[in-house]
């Protein structure tokens, strides 16, 4: 099976996605259906997400197969997100994939959602392979990893509280911006002055020695509180409306400063030659531009296109290919695990298996 064809399926949150991947980079089709059921609720509602996935999954897969000009009988393996994520949403994808793999007599490969994000850039760029430092930033996770090779993920830092994307969403709500908040904050920040409201950069300096677990951890709760306090002050002063863009710009600058500073520190102590930025928040153009500016021309910045930065099935198929080639297939009793540990995750210090990222 030198150049297998994989069907990737992703249903961990509020995107129903299917992709046909031939070999390492030939994305023959890629369908992403973003659920709009959640906008009115101001955030993802798990039960509604699960219901919407069930409504959509057949059509999404059928379209992916049709656009690729293939059928399930020609698929060598199905790679499906098994966790982490919303359990009801994950179960739709996992159950569908188990049934389809049984009927089509093909292999089934469970994929960790975050590992999918690590593989997203290499779908488009053959240079986006280890060794690198990975800054994985999404709505649910913020991780800093040293990746010497595929399948070995050395944890250097994580968020102590809110994920980066969560902080963007919470600030969006403070500023009365609709869901999803991250892109709205980014858009509004374009109109603001990031220096007008200068917010704290929590934990910018490492408080521990390199080698100690969590020495590059980050925190966003203090930053969020500072923004909330400033918004209250501006509202009481009656100037919030005219200051909203400046607040958004100030928050975004502080959050990006924390993330990029941590990535720089990780590159420095590991000597890794490249930085890979991935996850939904990596679609933020200001983050990419700031990282590129501060890394300079010597350190390549790797990232996926915007389409492959959001939750998608092509990255799941690509990570699934890695595990398929290694013979790591789904057990018969595969189920979804909302807290699935990242396979191959160890503390960077070599202190042993890391705890599950929160």
């Amino acid at each position, binding site marked *: 099976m030198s150049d297998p064809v994989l069907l990737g399926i992703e249903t961990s949150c509020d995107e129903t996605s299917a992709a046909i991947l031939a070999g390492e980079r030939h994305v023959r089709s890629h369908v992403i259906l973003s659920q709009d059921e959640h906008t009115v609720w101001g955030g993802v509602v798990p039960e509604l997400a699960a*219901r919407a996935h069930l409504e959509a999954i*057949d059509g999404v897969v059928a379209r992916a197969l049709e656009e690729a000009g293939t059928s399930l009988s020609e698929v060598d393996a199905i790679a499906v997100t098994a966790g982490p994520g919303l*359990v*009801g949403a994950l179960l739709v994808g996992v*159950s569908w994939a*188990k049934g389809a793999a*049984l009927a089509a007599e093909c292999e089934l490969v469970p994929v960790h959602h975050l590992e999918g994000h690590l593989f997203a850039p290499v779908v488009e760029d053959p240079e986006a392979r280890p060794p690198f430092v990975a800054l994985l930033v999404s709505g649910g996770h913020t991780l800093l990893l040293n990746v010497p090779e595929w399948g070995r993920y050395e944890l250097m830092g994580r968020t102590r509280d809110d994920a980066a994307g969560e902080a963007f969403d919470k600030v969006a709500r403070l500023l009365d911006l609709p869901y999803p908040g991250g892109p709205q904050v980014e858009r509004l920040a374009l109109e603001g002055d990031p220096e007008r409201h200068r917010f704290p950069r929590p934990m910018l300096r490492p408080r521990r020695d390199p080698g100690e677990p969590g020495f590059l951890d980050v925190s966003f709760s203090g930053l969020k509180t500072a923004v909330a306090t400033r918004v209250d002050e501006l509202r009481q002063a009656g100037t919030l409306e005219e200051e909203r863009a400046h607040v958004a710009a100030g928050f975004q600058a502080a959050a990006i400063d924390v993330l990029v500073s941590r990535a720089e520190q990780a590159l420095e102590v590991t000597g890794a030659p490249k930085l890979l930025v991935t996850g939904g928040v990596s679609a933020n153009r200001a983050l990419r531009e700031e990282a590129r500016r501060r890394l300079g021309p010597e350190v390549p910045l790797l990232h996926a296109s915007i389409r492959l930065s959001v939750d998608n099935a092509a990255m799941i198929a690509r990570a699934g290919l890695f595990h398929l080639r290694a013979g790591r297939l789904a057990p018969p009793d*595969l189920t979804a695990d909302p807290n699935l540990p990242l396979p191959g995750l160890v503390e960077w210090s070599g202190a042993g298996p890391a705890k599950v990222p929160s």
Partner: protein
Amino acid sequence: MMAASDQEASVVLALEAGSEFGSVAVEVDGELAAVLVANERRRQAADLVPMIRTVLARAGVRVQDLSEIVVGKGPGSFTGVRIGIATARGLSMGSGCPVRPLSSILAAGTGTGTHLPNAVLQAMPAGGPTPDKVEAPAPDRPRLVLLDARGNRLWMGCVATRAGRVEVLLEPRAALVEDLAALDLPEEVVACGGGALRHADVLRRLGLDVAPWPEGLPSAPGLLALRRGLPKGPLQPPGSRWSPDYLRPSQPEREALRPEAS
């Protein structure tokens, strides 16, 4: 819509995952060939496909031999119902075999509890009072199936099975315990299911008998009995779009619909 004659529908796989115990059954040429019921609660996601493999092997058939997949479309556990339907749809797209979604609660009223194993028999819903009779009620007594939807909420449906033919006396619906008093059903009706056991005292006050567990548990053999006994529902081709019978909005929708005063 695909048409299916009885001659074509010679190998039928049935899946029920919306109840506490998932179950799988295969019928070959109208005869029940193999049945498997999970012996642990709420293991549908992990165990349903291995159970399908086992049941197909016991029946001596392959997925490719299937002419129809019957699946319980609810009501029941939202997550469990989705696991069953998603598995059936994956099987359908992988094999080309059509799916026939049938009501889980009407299937539970067909009196097929005798196929269920000891683990299920011993797992009578906790807190429920002792049933009125140890023996199952006569097969031709109409069943008012009441499934527990937590709190004072129920799903209900009523069927009568006579000589293999199933008549629907009450279409599946969501209800409150308080609604039971207003039901207009034949006198010989017997209540069954986890919701009936939980609210047996109310039912007795209303003059209704309560059948012993596991009468009224939605199951794959029940789906096959319903398929045989009712004018068949629509057969869904692979990839077609149809919805489960949730019969209840999601929690945030319910909260949003709740009057402000309450």
